[in-house]
């Protein structure tokens, strides 16, 4: 739509006719899309597994750190790394690939509202976030013996979803700004690695005070902070509330730009 100039569009007043009987309900359209997207995700399960595997490996390998930095800190770090991978590597790359193959254009010429196409994709990613969080909780409990109270698990789960939205929005911004799927792939990897490396080492104080502060207010730091704060609800501070507000701000800005820049076709 954005490839053409705007008004004055359509000079002749429309003659509205009664709706055809064949127009399906939006819920049925959404269900059909979701079924197909979940099937596609399942067929690409090896890639999905990799997204979950890396934070699980980090969780296992950081067992020795738990006494020093605490279980919630380690869990929050691993969840944040996984959320990064889902939003940046999984979501943005799948959107870039399907756009390149004109799959979206084929869907858009069917009587499916545009928002249902994206809502279905986002639902799949939310399911991935839920699976990731549960896997981290289970591995943390089974292998690292990290035990939280039920409110910690619930709040942590909810904050993982809030945090996941930042990276999905960031992925949307990357795929909105860049057209070529290979460029999207390279950029999302670069951003992912930058977040992980600078975020992890910076927060441990290995890169100096300035980087430590910068990381705290980066999408990595704020998400890690709210997930960590939620896992131990008693330790939620004003600083964590600020991190939550910054997280929501990042999400709003990235999503706004991502939606504004996004084009359904590469042509």
């Amino acid at each position: 739509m954005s490839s053409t100039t705007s008004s004055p569009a359509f000079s002749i007043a429309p003659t509205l006719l009664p709706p055809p009987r064949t127009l399906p309900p939006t819920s049925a359209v959404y269900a059909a899309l979701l079924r197909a997207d979940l099937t596609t995700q399942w067929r690409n399960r090896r890639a999905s597994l990799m997204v979950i595997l890396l934070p699980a490996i980090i969780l296992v390998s950081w067992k020795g750190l738990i006494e020093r930095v605490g279980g919630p800190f380690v869990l929050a770090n691993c969840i944040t790394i996984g959320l990064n991978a889902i939003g940046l590597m999984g979501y943005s790359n799948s959107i870039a690939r399907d756009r390149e193959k004109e799959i979206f254009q084929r869907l858009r010429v069917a009587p499916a509202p545009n928002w249902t196409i994206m809502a279905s994709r986002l639902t799949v990613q939310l399911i991935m976030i839920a699976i990731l969080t549960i896997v981290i909780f289970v591995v943390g409990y089974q292998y690292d013996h990290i035990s939280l109270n039920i409110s910690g698990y619930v709040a942590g789960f909810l904050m993982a979803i809030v945090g996941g939205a930042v990276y999905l929005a960031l992925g949307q911004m990357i795929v909105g700004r860049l057209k070529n799927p290979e460029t999207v792939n390279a950029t999302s990897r670069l951003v992912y690695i930058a977040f992980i490396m600078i975020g992890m080492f910076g927060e441990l104080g290995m890169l100096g005070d300035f980087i430590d502060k910068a990381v705290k207010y980066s999408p990595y730091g704020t998400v890690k902070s709210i997930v960590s704060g939620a896992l131990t609800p008693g330790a939620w501070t004003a600083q964590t509330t600020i991190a939550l507000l910054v997280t929501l701000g990042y999400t709003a800005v990235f999503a706004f730009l991502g939606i504004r820049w996004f084009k359904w076709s590469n042509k």
Partner: protein
Amino acid sequence: MNTLSNTPVLRVEGLNVNYGAFHAVRDVSFEVQPGEIFGLLGPNGAGKTSTLSAVEGLIRPFTGAIHVAGYDIRHQPLYARACMGVQLQATSFQPELTLVEILRLYGGLYGVNLTDSQLNTILRDIKLEDHAGKRYGQLSGGQQQRVSLVIATIHDPRLVLMDEPTTGLDPQSRRQLWERIETMRDKGHGILLTTHSMEEAEAVCDRIAIIDHGQIITIDSPQAIIDDNRNRPEVIRASRKGKITLEDVFIGLTGADVRA
């Protein structure tokens, strides 16, 4: 579908499409009637795909009106799309999904609940019953084209849009595709297609519009277009076999230079 049974399945009026400063489609108007195969012919970059994209609602025209089976594509886009079936230039389905899954997906999008027996009938009809569980990405080009066509008509639309449907097909598949298109016409579907094959357009299309530099330069039945232009010097110059064909008229009217 609607109360106006004698409505053209497609009416395009004064269509203009701009890409920034580039005027891709200029004041294009035409109609497609039920039971008609209408060909949109033109050199590369002439404005065929832009016209088709505007009809599909994929791009927003600068000015003009488009009605599909009476429904305004801008004000009632979902209703208009429910009345049209589309075969895009690219074979654009999820490669990980099987044939049956793709049929079920598009059945769901068009509000068509397909039973197992209906699915089998469809697959048998396109001679792919043995490939039901095969992923779309594993099918040959001709098989993908057949799937694409069957999905374009899965909801029995009044208008079928086809963008260069025979590109990349072997002669057998091409012949079979034209037979299917003619069958659709016989059933009363209106068909709007673009093609680079003048021979096929001459043989199959009921009416043709030749478009160049975004404008329709002639619109009529293939034979009438040939008859009206056979004495033009540029058409005679383009003729190589003595007998004037649609291709000669096309080259005569649009020029012999290869377009980028």
